[in-house]
């Protein structure tokens, strides 16, 4: 085989992820956008009634959109402080042996299938919440706690890289001026790593927004706008996951249209994360 042919083949493989992304975008949009056109953007996104098979049909995704929003914010409230704290621990504080235990543990935490998390939320945490806090148990709160733990490994790995990238001279300079270890971490290291940490938060947000099966198992799947964290709700993803198997016609198109909204949100988050992390490199 000539070098030129090999080069051409390798270039093709490299272009394939780009091509896949384009084909994915095209087919999702092609399947979903016509329905948004028929319903109208405002009634689709702002409508509060989702009744895709009723008479008259109604395609409003606001309850799911709000469900996704609340859940994502909740997951960030749980996952970000925990994740950043563990990242600081790994990069700055952990004794060697402890780090040797933590690293594979975090990797394992990231590798546990989401259905297992969902199941633990469903059978362990939800009854606990119902018993001690009230409500149906299957709720935004339950889901947010579990989802927060699910996004934690993502937050940890990117934040840890960012913290490690802070030059040692910063720490030495701060310690030499008489600052305590904590003052150095809080006042010097974390600010210097902030764009990497921010990127990790945004990517964690994307992961929370996109999680499906675990959410279906924990959130109660009630088509309502949740008024309290203890209420059941439904999200963009969980609704697609629940209804796609049996949907047809306009109903299926509406699920793809929901997918379009989700896709646009996630891509926007990816772009923001990319811009933010490039800021650190510059």
């Amino acid at each position, binding site marked *: 085989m000539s*070098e030129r042919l090999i*080069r051409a*083949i390798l*270039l093709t*493989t*490299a272009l*394939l*992820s*780009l091509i*896949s*992304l384009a*084909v*994915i975008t095209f*087919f999702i949009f092609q*399947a979903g956008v016509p329905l948004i056109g028929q319903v109208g953007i405002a009634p689709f996104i702002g409508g509060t009634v989702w009744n895709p098979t009723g008479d008259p049909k109604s395609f409003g995704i606001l309850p799911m959109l709000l469900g996704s929003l609340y859940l994502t914010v909740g997951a960030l409230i749980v996952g970000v*402080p*925990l994740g950043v*704290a*563990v990242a600081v*621990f790994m990069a700055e*504080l952990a004794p060697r042996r402890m780090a040797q235990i*933590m690293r*594979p*543990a*975090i*990797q*394992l*935490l990231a*590798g*546990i*299938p*989401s*259905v*297992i998390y969902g*199941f*633990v939320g*469903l*059978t*362990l945490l939800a009854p606990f919440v119902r018993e001690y806090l009230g409500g149906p148990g299957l709720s935004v709160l339950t889901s947010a706690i579990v989802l927060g*733990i699910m996004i934690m490994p993502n937050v940890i790995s990117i934040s840890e890289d960012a913290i490690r990238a802070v030059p040692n001279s910063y720490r030495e300079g701060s310690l030499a001026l008489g600052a305590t*270890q*904590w*003052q150095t*971490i*809080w006042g010097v290291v974390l600010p210097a790593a902030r764009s990497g940490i921010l990127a990790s938060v945004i990517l964690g947000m*994307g992961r929370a*927004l*996109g*999680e*499906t*099966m675990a959410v*279906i*198992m924990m959130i109660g799947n009630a088509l309502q706008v949740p008024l309290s964290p203890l209420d059941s709700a439904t999200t963009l993803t969980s609704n*697609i*996951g629940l209804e796609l198997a049996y949907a047809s016609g306009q109903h299926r198109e509406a699920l*793809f249209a929901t*997918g379009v909204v989700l*896709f646009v949100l*996630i891509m926007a988050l*990816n772009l923001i994360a990319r811009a933010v992390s490039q800021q650190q490199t510059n």
Partner: protein
Amino acid sequence: MSDQLRGKIAIGMIWAAALFSLSVLILIIAYILIRGLPQVSLSFLLESPTDLGRSGGIFPAILGTLVLGLGALVIAVPLGIGSAIYLTEYTYPSRLTSIIRFGTESLAGVPSIIFGLFGFIFFVSYLKMSWSILAGSLTLALMILPTIIRTAEEAIRAVPQSYREVSFGMGATRWQMVTTVVLPTALPGILTGIILAFGRAVGETAAVIFTAGTALNIPISVFSPVRTMAVHFYILAVEGISLEKAYATGAVLIITVLLINIGANMLITRAVVRTGRK
């Protein structure tokens, strides 16, 4: 002195967070294993389920998981490694490479339900593969492709530059240099990535359930639908078929993931030893 105290409290909280994350991991694993393992037996692993999974074993689901995961690897590994070789050895940073990188990173950020939607509309409907091993493996392959590219790229970049110089100096073509020096040296790292990608495929549900289906039969060809362990576990739990069987399936799933992670970690250690000896 209050600065000292504040610092001590803060650092104590960080330790608490680390220990908390460790305990959550132990809690999840222990919870599933304690409830599930007693019901796992050889016949559970080797028998087909009966009555929708209320009784019997999970053999078709184990088989389905393996076939689907390996199918995804067969597709994604050559593409991913080829892509990584191109980006590291065959080109210099340019507009094109940054666009390719953007594509890979974006693909990595696409949630699995979107892959499920896409696989369903494209492979299952448009290409008329119906719910099948083929459609499921292709969808999973797209999903794990970025992981394989990224880990292979990192492993290849860690190969010392001097090896390349020597190889070129001995008259190697670029491709000879890649196959005789770069890939053998980067192999442990590349394998680690492949194993982790397999782990991701094993645990995936949303992208699989709408592309490979939920059939509980033993597959006979790549066009047969299959049900993976993760999907079986999900259906048992959500449809309230059998909580006991769900725990047992979950235990098998967790052990699989544990083994995969242990394997990957052993390879990482070997990779460190190999580069450390230089």
